[in-house]
């Protein structure tokens, strides 16, 4: 093995002098320009949000962080993000709790269990699920899911009401709650998490799996000992992609949730709100000042999303050395 095929096929490079052609320079310029453009856009968004936010928040007659209601167009304006931040986080957490196990299950089934004839159509259907526009999910949620949630919420209220979380303040109300929104969001983010996890599961080195099989591991033990540890960081980034969509989802939430300035631990109650839903609901009739106030809430969502992404990156970086995903 003293001569590899690449050695013999590579063009002879002149030593000590690199040739740059016009194409190289154009491409360098283009790619550098794209990189700079991205930074400029991000900076511009941040500056725009910050300037508008400062002008709005300085005139807020409530506490921007702790006020429940959103009456930015009243005189004097009183608005705050407490309910919105709570609702955004709670609905996204519910969505993640439901979507993550299901997505990993689907992805494992497609990559490791299903026969090829079933796996590729199934993967295609999951792709299709990602292509459904969110307003369609919203309409389906409001007109079909909500009436059909009645039984489940009544059951949860009856048997798990003692947990406070599943208590309904007024049994029998329409299920236009954060819980229903969470379920809808879960359905919307399942394809995203599934797709990315599936690709990661496919990349597990064949040698790892064969080694586990050679040691006498069953299918489940192979998954547990070689696939899941290798794919852990990939699953985390898949979840973060999904979480990003759940946090920012607008129309589906706006059509399904019965929003109100109420912060409650009872997730089955028709109450609460999310950042994106609140912006969609108030934007159409907002005055200039009301718009600035909505932009301020947008900035908070922007910051929350940045924090979530940062946390995900930290987790991935820490896991890298164990999983082998760094390769």
């Amino acid at each position, binding site marked *: 093995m003293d001569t590899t095929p690449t050695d013999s096929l590579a063009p002879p490079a002149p030593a000590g002098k690199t040739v740059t052609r016009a194409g190289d320079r154009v491409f360098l310029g283009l790619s550098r320009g794209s990189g700079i453009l991205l930074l400029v856009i991000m900076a511009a968004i941040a500056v725009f949000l910050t300037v508008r936010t400062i002008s709005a928040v300085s005139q807020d007659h409530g506490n921007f962080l702790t006020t429940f209601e959103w009456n930015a167009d009243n005189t004097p304006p009183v608005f705050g993000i407490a309910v919105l931040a709570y609702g955004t986080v709670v609905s996204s957490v519910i969505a993640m709790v439901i979507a993550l196990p299901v997505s990993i299950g689907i992805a494992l089934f497609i990559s490791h269990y299903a026969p090829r004839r079933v796996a590729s159509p199934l993967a295609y259907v999951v792709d299709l699920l990602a292509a459904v526009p969110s307003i369609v999910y919203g309409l389906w949620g409001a007109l079909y899911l909500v009436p059909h949630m009645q039984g489940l919420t009544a059951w949860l209220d009856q048997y798990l009401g003692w947990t406070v979380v599943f208590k309904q303040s*007024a049994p029998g109300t*329409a299920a236009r709650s954060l819980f229903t929104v969470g379920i809808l969001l879960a359905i919307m983010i399942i394809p995203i998490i599934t797709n990315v996890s599936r690709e990661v599961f496919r990349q597990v080195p064949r040698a790892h799996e064969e080694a586990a099989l050679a040691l006498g591991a069953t299918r489940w033990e192979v998954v547990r000992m070689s696939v899941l540890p290798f794919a852990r960081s990939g699953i985390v980034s898949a979840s973060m992609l999904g979480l990003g969509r759940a946090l920012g989802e607008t129309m589906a939430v706006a059509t399904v949730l019965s929003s109100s300035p109420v912060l409650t631990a009872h997730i089955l109650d*028709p109450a609460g709100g999310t950042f994106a839903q609140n912006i969609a609901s108030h934007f159409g*009739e907002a005055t200039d000042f009301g718009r600035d106030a909505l932009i301020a809430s947008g900035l908070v969502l922007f910051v929350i999303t940045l924090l979530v992404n940062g946390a995900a990156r930290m987790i991935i970086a820490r896991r890298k050395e164990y999983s082998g995903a760094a390769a």
Partner: protein
Amino acid sequence: MKLQRKSGLRALAVGAAAVSGALVLTACGSDNNSGSSSPSTGASNAAAGSIKCGSKGNLLASGSTAQQNAVNVWVKNYMQACPGTQINYKGTGSGAGVTEFLQGSTAFAGSDSALKPDQIAQSKKVCGGTGQAIDLPMVGGPIAVGYNLPGVSNLVLDAPTLAKIFNGKIVKWNDPAIAKLNPSAKLPSTAIQAFHRSDESGTTDNFTKYLIGAAGSEWPYSGGKAWQAKGGQSAQGSSGVAAQVKQTAGSIGYFELSYATAGSIPTVAVDTGASQPVQASSDNASKMIADAKVVGTGDDLSLKLDYATKADGAYPITLVTYEIVCDKGNKSATLGATKGFLSYIAGSGQQGLSGQGYAPIPAEINAKVRSTIDALS
């Protein structure tokens, strides 16, 4: 190949989401109802024959979605009768419509509420320094209170009871206050599920104006386009509220009459103190507007409704929408077309409105509107 297929799909998804997002944003707070938007009312087509065209030109206008269905029919008829005139009315919501007008980007605006004093002061800039913006009442409409209560028909409520229901003070259908107004009805003991708008809207504004005007201390809020009362449930758009009322037993909600008609949702008759409880209808809304006082100064014809009215057949939960133009100093390029179009909608365009769930402006006020339009310059 595989990669390409996937990225193509993803791009499709992104594109679809973007398009639907844009569609939905423009439809926010929309009071359209596709059920009534079909411009096929015979009366309005017949009226098209008597249109007197103004000079040609392109008209841009925007604003209230509550009057959009009416405007759509007017625009269609006017453009058919007057080739060479292009009119584009965007239902952006009253707030955005007035803002665009004050920025000088539209010839007129549609609005569910009259201009505020500071907006009139601001308007002098776009009205050439000599004029100012005025409100012209052009079309009214009843806001129906729809309910879903199996076994109960012809529900009657009055203002204090409505206020208590929407304020969460009355929570059961068999509350004594409701029973007193409906002695013959068999009211169930189920919980009342009151629905309001989750988005900001002129419908909410006018509904709460009525509660403030007629229910007194039972409605302790200042009013506005955003819902202020605690409790209750909310839905997006009049169509959203109507859909929830239709599918939820024990519910009650407010929306334009056309939604109740389209969804065959029963509506509350309001006990105003008149000899009979008043049903929500175009005629009854017109009677309400007929008793309104003009409170605008000069050419401004903004109206003040007497929400506590006891007149027979006057339905008190009524909204009036305005067209907003400059009295003097309109742009010369659009003045002719604006006058032509507004004269038509204040004249023969008023016929056929009731077929769409709107209420025409009564003759006395309408005459003032027409003479004001003739004097626009």
